């Protein structure tokens, strides 16, 4: 067989594997992030104590931030590279094209990813640095205050709801897709892959969407 092979990062399979591995990291993060934020339902003390606990561990906190930053960059790099290659593979489009199997979630992956990228930047400027926080920003010392005053603005709540709908769609296709990309496939367990993807997408996106709605409804105040 020919002596030449491509480096992992130069094949579509390798790039997808990079997306899948960085995807797993980010899926783990968004899941833990959502669960952590559920503490907002327990009131100001509990929520702020959680924030103080995280900031009391600067080592792990910064390690996690760096891993996540690297994951977002690698994931986005592979996404852009693959989307370009995929577009170039079909220079002439069909006059008539029917789809037989794909889902809206699968089709909206690149757009949803782009929306998530903008959302991540906005979200950090809002809650981490406070640059775009409405009104007074009190840092992590009173994260509960920032949480409530942020979501009391309907437009900001709306941004979070919409972004999380796209997060749910991205997770639904992404979780199933990543198992396939990493070759995790077995006839006996395959039906669980889509169920797990739907379950995770609904729980994570649903949990996140509940926060702005709870604030607007006055449940969290």
């Amino acid at each position, binding site marked *: *067989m*020919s*002596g*030449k*092979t*491509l*480096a*992992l990062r*130069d*094949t*579509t*399979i*390798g*790039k*997808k*594997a990079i997306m899948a591995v960085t995807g797993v990291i980010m899926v783990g993060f968004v899941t833990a992030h959502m669960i952590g934020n559920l503490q907002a339902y327990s009131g100001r003390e509990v929520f702020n104590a959680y924030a103080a606990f995280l900031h009391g561990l600067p080592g792990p906190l910064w390690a996690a931030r760096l891993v996540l930053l690297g994951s977002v960059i690698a994931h986005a790099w592979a996404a852009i590279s*693959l989307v370009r*290659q*995929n*577009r*170039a*593979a*079909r*220079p*002439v*489009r*069909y*006059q*008539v*094209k*029917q*789809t*037989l*199997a*794909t*889902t809206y979630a*699968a*089709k909206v*992956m690149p757009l949803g990813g782009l929306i998530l990228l903008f959302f991540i930047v906005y979200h950090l400027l809002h809650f981490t640095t406070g640059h775009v926080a409405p009104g007074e920003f009190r840092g992590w010392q009173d994260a509960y205050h920032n949480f409530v005053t942020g979501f009391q603005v309907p437009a900001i709540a709306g941004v979070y709801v919409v972004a999380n709908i796209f997060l749910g769609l991205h997770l639904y*296709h992404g979780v*199933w*897709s990543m*198992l*396939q*990309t*990493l*070759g*995790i*496939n077995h*006839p006996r367990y*395959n039906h669980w892959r889509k169920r797990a993807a739907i379950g995770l997408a609904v729980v994570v996106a649903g949990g996140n969407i509940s926060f702005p709605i709870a604030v607007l409804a006055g449940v969290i105040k």
Partner: protein
Amino acid sequence: MNLTLHIWRQKKATDKGGFATYKLAGVSPDSSFLEMLDQLNEEILAGGKDEPVAFDHDCREGICGACGMVVNGVPHGPQELTTTCQLHMRKFKDGDELWLEPWRAAAFPVVRDLVVDRGAFDRIIQAGGYISVNTAAPRDANEIPVPKTDADLSMDAAQCIGCGACVAACPNASAMLFTAAKVTHLGVLPQGQAERGPRVLAMVAQMEAEGFGGCTNHGECESACPKGIKLEFIARLNRDYLKAAIGGREAAQQRTVRR
């Protein structure tokens, strides 16, 4: 049956091409799709003005993979698990309007009208789709025992006739289903083990070099495949490839090139 046909006409690879519309009357519902096109071509020839529509075909019994074209946006037309040559006109209705297009992929240049060059598939197979055996003396067929489940899996993958419908259906014109079938049907057999790692590395490298897109797990290929090749094989290809590329000794010994 009377039909209106919008057919992609393109004289040669470098031409721009475009659709031409034909009215065809008196089509028998019992004729096959390709016989319907034969009938059209006879009328075109009798008319003496236009040139007949070029389309690929060979066996006309669903086993050679030559006859693909996209009918109303679906490779091989509306009937599941059926090649264009095995499709019958009774699947359509009197007065139907049909759009016939060639496979659309950068890796499958149009040769003429509905005929594309699927040489890229041959080159992927040449890169590694074989096993090495001693052929000097006849071997006993059952010399190496093969578990029944592996034999079945291999035969399922070997159903692939290389027609290219997977590429045509894929939003990314990806050849992953084809390559997966070819890698799997050898890779699950004992006879395929010796070259398993180098095979998948070489075939994937060739697949990439041909300019196909990547897999985004839409599943369009599986639905369009006339032979029922399953997405499961793509997961196997990914697994085999990642194993060979990350952990395989062959990968360490082979020269890795950057594109």
